[in-house]
């Protein structure tokens, strides 16, 4: 630990510093290279540490975007389900921007895009009824605020470089930080197993449910300081009156109209739910009382997962998320549906 921070002392420690640093660099490279090979051999893969800066890199590209840009908004369900590559196979020529944030309702981002006069793109907003309630809908607000108050060219360059490295190097995975490895080893006498979620440079995520160890999900979750963490009522405590819901729908519609007014488009997608979660959602937010009211009172295109027959084939191992083996197919079906509804143009037609 260095405590005497002085260079005014002429006694700079003498010695062969060139050799010292060269050997140190070689040694560090050798150890890091060995670690990289070791973790890869144990099945670990690189993953990007998703934070506010990585969100801002994508958000910045949305400004000035036209109809050939598809902005994906929502929470983890769409962040882990939408595969840009699969979408582009069906609809080439588009630019896909993933602005979804795990654990956070998308209303603040929808509002931000609506307020951005230069944005004329297409918004695919995956949202549940609960995700639109005031208690949780603004969970992406810190990201928006950060973008408008603190984001800079310097941060963008830094984040782009970090992403490029994190996409390629396993040793930079937050779960493989020495401190976490030591904690895991001391607690369980074993090395960390590969994490079941992988985040890519474009902020999309893959969930490999075959690797999920249920009791370890929380412990394995990477330390992503920028990710939204919601505090407040639990899901089954969320509630809203009929009038409140109608007012909420009206607020959303105002944002939709603003985007449409500039030539953009908005699609509201109700993502897939299964099992106990679906039963609970149906009980707390029956479709006829919530989603259908939203669909009837918005000029946005609305897609409920129950209305797309091809979506029925997908299982959600945890009731709400798709396994990464299904996501490309899901995205393809979704692209087909968007083409059918005339929101985007499929192969051969080119973007609108």
């Amino acid at each position, binding site marked *: *630990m*260095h*405590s*005497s*921070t*002085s*260079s*005014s*002392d002429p*006694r*700079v*420690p*003498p*010695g*062969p*510093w*060139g*050799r*010292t*640093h060269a*050997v*140190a*660099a070689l*040694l*560090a490279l050798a*150890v*890091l290279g060995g*670690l990289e090979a070791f973790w890869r051999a144990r099945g670990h893969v690189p993953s990007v*540490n998703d*934070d506010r*800066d990585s969100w801002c890199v994508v958000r910045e590209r949305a400004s000035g975007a036209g109809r050939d840009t598809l902005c994906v908004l929502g929470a983890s369900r769409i962040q882990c389900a939408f595969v840009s590559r699969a979408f582009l196979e069906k609809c080439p020529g588009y630019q896909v921007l993933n602005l979804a944030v795990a654990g956070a309702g998308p209303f603040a981002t929808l509002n931000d895009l609506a307020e951005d006069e230069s944005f004329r793109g297409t918004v695919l907003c995956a949202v549940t009824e609960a995700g639109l309630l005031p208690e949780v809908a603004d969970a992406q607000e810190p990201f928006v605020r950060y973008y408008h*108050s603190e984001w*800079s*060219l*310097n941060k963008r*360059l*830094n984040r782009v*470089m*970090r992403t490029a*490295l994190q996409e390629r190097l396993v*040793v*930079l995975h*937050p779960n*493989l*930080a*020495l*401190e976490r490895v030591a*904690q895991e080893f*001391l*607690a369980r006498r074993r090395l960390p197993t590969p994490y079941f979620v992988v985040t890519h440079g474009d902020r999309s995520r893959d969930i490999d449910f075959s690797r999920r160890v249920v009791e370890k999900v929380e412990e394995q979750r990477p*330390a*992503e*300081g*920028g990710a939204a963490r919601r*505090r407040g009522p639990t899901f089954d405590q969320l509630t809203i009156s009929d009038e409140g819901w109608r007012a909420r729908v009206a607020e959303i519609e105002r944002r939709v109209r603003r985007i449409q007014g500039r030539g953009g488009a908005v699609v509201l997608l109700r993502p897939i739910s299964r099992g106990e979660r679906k039963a609970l959602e149906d009980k707390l937010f029956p479709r006829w009382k919530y989603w259908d009211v939203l669909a009837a009172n918005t000029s946005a295109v609305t897609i409920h997962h129950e209305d797309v027959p091809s979506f029925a084939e997908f299982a959600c191992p945890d009731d709400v998320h798709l396994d990464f083996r299904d996501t490309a197919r899901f995205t393809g079906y979704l692209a087909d549906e968007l083409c059918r509804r005339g929101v985007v143009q499929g192969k051969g037609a080119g973007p609108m």
Partner: protein
Amino acid sequence: MLFNSLTFLAFFAVVLILHNLPLSWRTRKANLLVASYIFYAAWNPPFVVLLWVSTLVDWFVARRLAVTRRVPARRGLLLISLAANLGLLGFFKYGAFLTTNVIAFARLLGVHFQPLAPDIILPVGISFYTFQTLSYTLDVYSGKREPGKSFLDYALYVTFFPQLVAGPIVRAGDFLPQCEEPKRASAEQLGWGLSLLLLGLFEKVVVADGLLAPVSEQVYDPQACPGFCGAWTGTFAFAGQIFCDFAGYSSCAVGIALCLGFALPDNFRFPYAAIGFSDFWRRWHISLSTWLRDYLYIPMGGNRGEGLRPLRNLSVTMFLGGLWHGASWTFVLWGVLHGVYLAIERVLLWVVPRGAFWRRNPVRAGLALATFLMVCVGWVFFRARSLGAASAMLASMFGGGGAQGQPALGMGKVAVVLGITIGILLLHWLLRDSSLEALVARCPWWLRSLVLASLMIAIVTLSGEDRAFIYFQF
């Protein structure tokens, strides 16, 4: 631009290459000046204007002071500098604080008004470069030094990027003479400078951010209600975090400057081995404490004067020292608490007879430990977000609160914090009368390589969330 960012590494590599090209000394200084503006603008470009204002005002005031003999005119010139520098600092740093307190005071008097909330962004490093330029003008005013001859040198003195945003606060007398002769780092300076940069990054990225910040954040979370053990662990974690964060920044600053051939002054000297609070302030943030001593405490009378005057001088200095750290009553209380510590120490030195007993090593170690624990009590005010949160934390630390005993930190985290705290205390104690340079000079080159390689590996494999240096906010 943060030292712990990839953009800084790229920036510094370019600066280092430019600085070592066969160009004239004037051109290389101009390169450094432009690089310093880019470094500052990377955070928020418009605020570079503030740097220019501060630079120009003090440059011209100092030049006028050198040719003005009439006392009232000299005072007027000094007032211009004080008004410009402290005005900017006051507006940006204390504007919102002042407004809030005026509203609260008016409410106490039964007057209710609600002005528009000022949405003021604090320019990074403004407290540091304001004090730096002020010291230049004050030195010229008091006749301690002549004004600089070269505007380029002076602008570089104000803006030099290694220490621009978080110190050390450099005196013109230390820096300007270094600009007169062409400078390139020797091989040994470059080697040692890079080593200091690595060491600083290790302190910041690994120890402060990677290991200690998560614990202090968890314990000092507004919704946490830590018990006795949790409160002390969180406070020890913050004590280590703020030291490694700030000393890490200073190490980087000194190392980077050395790579360019410049020497910066001491900022830390193993402060957690201090015996008493006078000793602590001779070892902690030395460039600020000496600034306050030279430009505030001594001009007010210092130790001279009858009765309670020295204690008043001390109290005012520490009050303003606390306020310098932040526009919040918690920082003010932190400063006042240190003022009280210093006053009590001074009284004890008058009252308690000196003898061989106090020079025994176990006694000295005990006094150093007591000093550290009292410093930690002070850190509670520094870290807590409000006076209420600080008093709740103190209640937990002294057994009167946190009945729920939350948050459960886990034995692993407690062990890590205690291990690091004990490590820092031991290291500081062992090196308190020595220096890092002396220690490194005794090490064979291969051991240095081994240590440097370990630092690199730790920095790469323990880089979590990017956190700004704590002192950037001051």
